[in-house]
């Protein structure tokens, strides 16, 4: 079996982890963005992915949720292969992974709770989801619990556009929770936020990993923030993994090398 062979070639990848990526490759035209990435995210851990712009961090996450199609490799979500999969099983597997974006991507004219409820759209029939008025009562309660989890239950009725950037990002996290995903992927979730809000967002992500046993992978540009909150640091350089270790085992020069000017050779 092709998948079994691939797993053998990537001994470090744990196939039973919520998210197991092996040998992932992706090129845009001539430019190779991902050159064989192996990455495992286990239940209950927060993995911080570091790397310079263009090192392929975001592309890797986008491949997992289906916003980009990998050229080769394997992505297993809760044990199910999604590369090359089709139909309902693909949709079901993808729903296990929720994405949080740098640009937040909430509907700004709607209130927080309606945005959180929209995380559940994938499992609702059209008759209960065509407008927010039709959302089931249980869903609204679940959404309130999700907002409470990120500390924003008191702002549930407020328009998203009136919330601060950090609050909006936490509403986006609540939306991901309402999706009932077991994997949380965050693509530069704090790049547009001030340090205090960034700290708060990462505290929420770490808390969700540890106490809700979610598998959390976050791309970010702040090594110190990553060191404070992450269980594991993964460095990406030229589309390859440069290091993958607990923060205590990664030295500052190793981190700095990711952003060194000579990397521009690629």
């Amino acid at each position, binding site marked *: 079996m092709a998948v079994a062979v691939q797993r053998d070639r990537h001994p470090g990848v744990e196939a039973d982890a919520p998210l197991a990526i092996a040998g992932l490759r992706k090129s845009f035209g001539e430019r190779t963005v991902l050159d064989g990435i192996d990455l495992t995210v286990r239940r209950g851990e927060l993995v911080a992915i570091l790397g310079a712009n263009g090192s392929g961090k975001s592309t890797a996450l986008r491949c997992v*949720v*289906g*916003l980009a199609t990998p050229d080769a490799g394997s992505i297993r979500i809760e044990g199910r292969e999604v590369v090359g999969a089709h139909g309902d099983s693909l*949709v079901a597997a*993808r*729903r296990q*992974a*929720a*994405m949080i*974006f740098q*640009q*937040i*991507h*909430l*509907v*700004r*004219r*709607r209130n927080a709770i309606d945005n959180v409820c*929209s*995380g559940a*759209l*994938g*499992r*609702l029939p*059209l008759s209960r*989801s*065509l*407008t*927010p008025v039709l959302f089931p009562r249980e869903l609204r309660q679940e959404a309130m619990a999700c907002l409470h989890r990120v500390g924003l239950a008191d702002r549930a009725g407020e328009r998203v556009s009136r919330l601060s950037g950090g609050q909006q990002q936490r509403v*986006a996290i609540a*939306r*991901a929770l309402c*999706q009932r*995903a077991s994997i949380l992927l965050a693509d530069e979730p704090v790049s547009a936020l001030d340090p205090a809000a960034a700290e708060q967002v990462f505290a929420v992500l770490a808390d969700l990993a540890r106490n809700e046993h979610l598998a959390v992978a976050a791309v970010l540009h702040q090594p110190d923030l990553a060191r404070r909150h992450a269980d594991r640091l993964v460095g990406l350089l030229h589309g390859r993994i440069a290091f993958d270790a607990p923060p205590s085992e990664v030295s500052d020069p190793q981190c700095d090398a990711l952003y060194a000017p000579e990397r521009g050779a690629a």
Partner: protein
Amino acid sequence: MAATTVAETVPPPPRTALRSRRALVIGLVVAAIVALHAVAWSKTEFSPHALIHGWHGMVDFVSQAWPPDFSWDDVLHPGLNAALVTLCIGLLGTTFSIPFAGALAVMGARTTAPNIVVYQASRSTMSALRAVPDVVFALIFVTAVGLGPFPGVLALMVHNTGVMGKLWSEAIEETDLGPVEALRTNGARGAQVVSHAVLPAVVPQLVGLLLYRFDVNVRASLVLGLVGAGGIGFLINQSIQLFRFDQMLTYILIVLVLIIAVDQLSAFVRRRLA
């Protein structure tokens, strides 16, 4: 002293002179546009000379129209009634086109179309509806349902479906795709994405365009009156044929008030929405 330091260390700004090839292209485009206008000038028999020589014709015409005939029973009362009909034709023609324009807009916007076939079919339908002038639609519907305001409503409804559908689909295409992407990744299906990500973002623009079309359609329904679709346009046409230019002027003043009122109303609502 500071100035000399700057001059020594800072490279000179890039030259802004047009590169020769770009200048050539711009020159050709300008020449083509001028040539096109020259052709248009002769094709339309544009002649300021004729206008200056014939000015007394206009004076005669206007002097016959002045003073306007404000008699209540014969002119003003029927005029106001007909203006109300004109307004109603524009209103219903606009309102009844909403569901059709909405469906075509969603299917004809690149960002929300389910597939390329539906997208192209929807675009072509909207183009066809726009290509046929509302007056022609009115004539077609008059043959079916007879003279009166009803064929006017049908004509505006059909034509406006094409125009508003296109305007709406463009508004939809311009919206931020982020929330759409976010909902797609969590498993939402097409209709859910439209109702939870696209529509909430574009509704203010859509309402603004709807009001603009209402404004245009009220004016269009005037012209429809000229071909027998009722309303004040019909009275204007009648008064011209009877050489009652004083009555015609009264009707035009009524139209002026109506147009200003509709324009003010839609501008007010659009300001509130912005």
